């Protein structure tokens, strides 16, 4: 636990408190195949001295957390005083990187989690009711989306929803709109990502619920049957209460999984319309050529705090269950 969980978190946190030393810039003459020009470059001799004295960088306290790329309190304050209507204010706020990403991440989590719970449970009930000979093949088929690597699965779907792909072309035909593009509108991109998310995580909740259904005590079900309970009533009053601990577990896993949504954004090339917290970390670390470790560390810590908030209700519930059983 300490090695694999605590230390990395502490390391990310410590990193997020530091920024790089001042870069000593000098103007130099730069020549190449296309001529010469005056450019600025880093005076390495002066800069390296600073780095060797304090390799972690310059202590910046929590300022990285407060800057425009993160909590941006100053910018949010300005937006509040400058905007006349609430709509203006929210437009301004969601234009900031962290809040924009948070909006998509939370929407994704809030839509995908309940739908996957409900659909997974329904499929489990359905498969459970099948004749024995059909069960094996249907379980296998239902698990397939889970077996596909997220990156590959979303790439395949990305090509299918292209204007010339099978899904994209069909949708164009149905709506009789040759310009309809799933990749060009924010709302449709979000929908596409959410549908992909459901498709991909559904098998997980299905298989856990299906396993749970096998443990429902037969006697209780039979007793309910004798009391004249309908199938619906048996599900609501017998099966679901029996599965509550499992539901907590699946919710927990789904919330964590969905909050760190990342791969589909990259493979759907959806960065223009949807960015998630994990995507921001990725962008900080990779895209600028020189990684922004402090910024990425700060976003990571904020993500952990975000997940902790989301999980709080579920964790409290699990703890209560645990205490109840202890007595």
């Amino acid at each position, binding site marked *: 636990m300490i090695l694999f969980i605590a230390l990395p978190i502490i390391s990310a946190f410590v990193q997020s408190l530091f*920024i*790089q*030393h*001042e*870069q000593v*810039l000098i*103007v*130099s*003459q*730069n*020549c*190449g*195949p*296309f*001529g*010469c*020009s005056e*450019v*600025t*470059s*880093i005076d*390495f001799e002066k800069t*390296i001295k600073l780095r060797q004295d304090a390799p972690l960088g*310059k202590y*910046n306290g929590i300022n*990285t957390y407060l*800057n*425009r*790329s993160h909590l941006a309190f100053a*910018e949010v304050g300005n937006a509040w005083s400058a905007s006349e209507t609430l709509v203006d204010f929210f437009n301004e706020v969601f*234009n900031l*990187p962290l809040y924009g990403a948070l909006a998509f991440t939370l929407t994704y989590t809030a839509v995908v989690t309940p739908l996957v719970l409900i659909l997974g449970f329904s499929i489990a009930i359905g498969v459970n009711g099948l004749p024995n000979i059909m069960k094996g093949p249907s379980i296998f088929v239902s698990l397939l989306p889970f077996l596909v690597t997220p990156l590959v699965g979303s790439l395949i779907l990305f090509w299918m929803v*292209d*204007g010339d792909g099978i899904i994209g072309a069909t949708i164009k035909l149905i709506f009789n709109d040759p*310009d309809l*593009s799933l*990749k*060009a509108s*924010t709302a449709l991109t979000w929908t596409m990502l959410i549908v992909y998310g459901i498709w991909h995580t559904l098998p997980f909740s299905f298989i856990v619920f299906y396993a749970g259904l096998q443990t429902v005590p037969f006697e209780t079900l039979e007793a309910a049957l004798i009391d004249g309970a309908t199938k619906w009533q048996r599900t609501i009053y017998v099966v679901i209460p029996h599965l509550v601990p499992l539901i907590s577990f699946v919710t927990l896993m789904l919330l964590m999984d969905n909050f760190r949504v990342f791969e589909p954004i990259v493979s*759907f*090339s*959806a*960065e*223009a*319309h949807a960015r998630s917290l994990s995507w921001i970390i990725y*962008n900080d670390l*990779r*895209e*600028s*050529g*020189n990684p*922004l470790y*402090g*910024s990425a560390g700060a976003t990571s810590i904020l993500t952990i705090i975000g997940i902790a908030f989301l999980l709080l209700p579920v964790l409290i519930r699990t703890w209560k269950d645990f205490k109840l059983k202890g007595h």
Partner: protein
Amino acid sequence: MFLKKLILSVATGCLLSSVAFATDCGPSGQSIRILASDFPAIHAVAGTAEKNCSSSASEFTRNHTTEARQIMNAALTPNPAEYTSVIVANSTLTQLMNDDLVRPLNDLVQKYGSNLPDNLMITVDGNVMAVAFMANSQHLFSRKDILEKAGIKSIPSTYNQVIDAADAIRKAGIMKYPIVMNMKTGWNVGESFNLIFVAHGGEFFKPGTAEPSVNTAEGIAALKMLKALSEYAHPDHLTQASNETQAIWEAGDAALGIMWGTRGSVILDNEGSSEQVTSNTILSSAPTVKPGGIPGATLWWDGFTISKNVPDSEAEATFAALISALNADMVAANNDDAIWLLEGFKPGAAAEGVSATAAGGAPPYPMLPQIGLLHNALGTELVDFLKGDESAEKALADVEAAYVTAAKEKGFLQ
């Protein structure tokens, strides 16, 4: 013209120098380890070096990966470094120099490279930091047949002519989206902005400082021009990079494109496209803002560097091996893989665009330590304007704000 001049200077260089052409691999028994990007021209250079010199080296390894840029700083930091050479471009050389990971090559150039012209030596304050061997830039691709059908007689040379031509093609009912550009969110859309920005005479930073200056009249004009062009590009343009734009072109679904010169030979070859597309594709200079102005392009070179943190003998052997590949035979065998800056290159139709763009005075992609941060900010913040969610001024203000935040963290601004 530009290339001819270059080649001429190479030829005179060779006449004047008395260096024999026998392969000189430098000290023998050394370990040569090359990290490079993964495309045919780079394979040609590193592969020829291996063929020439692997027998005299104790070890010769090549790692060709599209991830080279991501791993090179980490790989060169330890002493001894993981690789003795990294093959870089304008922007990636800055990334290595920012951490002082490559060595000056002046003495090695004197010893092994005296037959190469001076302008291939990438020089920073008199120190040769890399040796360039090929050039690249984005420029205009046009479909002659479609332009004629729409009543456009000549190949467009300014941005407004490109837009007018696109409009004529649309009005004639030939294509609804005649323009393709590399506009994928991130690096590509940032670069597309850069092209038009330099054509408008914009400067990325206030001179001599790391203060951004993109939220200017030039920046706003450039961004609005980019938007005007993108109105004629397929609605999916924010997801399209080189592979997608090339595919659209080869499928015959576009008539005007701003794409990389290195895609020229791939498009013009007889694979992946129809005779009608290849025989009517014309490569020309990147468009200008006003007739005769600066072409909207940044020029790129690819070249090799030598690691700082390796023994001098390994550095020397690596340099000698790579230099041995930069000759007319290698160019002759791989003529169409790149726009070579080397002796023996026969510029074909595929090189026309880059050649004209360079001759028109397009500037090189800026080699500034902080340019990566600004480029990234452009790539992420401009799309809000291109989607129509905010004004050009606001988008550019966001770019500057995002850049300033990142530059403060990296120590470029206080």
